């Protein structure tokens, strides 16, 4: 199915948000995740199922003012 990750459309087989992060290679990177505008804690990624057209944000620390 096609979903949107960080604004980029992509094809994925991942069933859950945890699978997606693993498939994309984030591994143990320090990231935060959101699905369709709502925060998904790391502890909930494994039971957060993905659906076609879902919009995922994967964010990491950056400079800020």
């Amino acid at each position: 199915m096609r979903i949107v990750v960080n604004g980029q459309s992509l094809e994925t087989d991942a069933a859950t948000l945890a699978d997606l992060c693993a498939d994309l290679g984030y591994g143990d990177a320090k990231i935060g995740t959101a699905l369709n505008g709502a925060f998904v804690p790391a502890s909930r990624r494994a039971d957060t199922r993905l659906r076609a057209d879902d919009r995922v944000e994967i964010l990491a620390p950056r400079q800020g003012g």
Partner: protein
Amino acid sequence: MSPLSLYGEIIASRLMLGTALYPSPEVMRQAVAAAAAAVVTVSLRREGAHDRAGQTFWTLIQDLGVRVLPNTAGCRSPREAITTAQMAREVFETDWIKLEVIANDDTLQPDVFGLVEAAQALSADGFKVFPYTTEDLGVAERLLAAGCEVLMPWASPIGAGRGLINPYGLRAMRAYFPGTPLIIDAGLGAPSHAAQAMEMGYDAVLLNTAVAKADDPVKMAAAFAKAVEAGRLGFEAGLMPERDMAQPSTPVAGTPFFDLNHA
């Protein structure tokens, strides 16, 4: 100088620094050190799968040994700000959040309606909210009612470097909330601006562009550190009142009178 307490925590420095816009991470590191900042602001941005830029930055920040204050920069709605805040709490492992809900790109000024709404939700969710706001007293009262224990009014638009464009309004705000920690956030361009804010009784200042975009950011960080101390000491020492007329400093009594006609 008297200590600063924010949400029950003693903060060792009244100068808070942003981490963006520096020529290099190393210059940023040195600037934070030169500023003797105890709090730095950070953000969350999209991470490509193989960048690891976030990890690198995070390691750098952790080595600074300072508190981080994540922001919600770029958010336009309470919903965006709340989600960003929740992600930041997990990633940065802190319940402090610098809450920005922006009204428009020209001024990057707070959308005070979205700000109050997000502040209510986040405070209820256990966050310690540092709201980026204006000098509007009514908005400030709603933020306090929402659970904020600190307010961060702007001096002028983010990145404008114009200093305190409405000193009258900021003076009124300080007088109206004598017991609330007030931090000037955004718009300071020169050390004298920081000193002026502190002399007015503001508790701290937060800035970024003025240091990061100086020709020599590390030296400028030191300059602001001294300016903040200067202003705070000046506030504590009690400024002389302005006078309309001149008044001699050198004693008038005993002034010689050289009678020139006689000579």
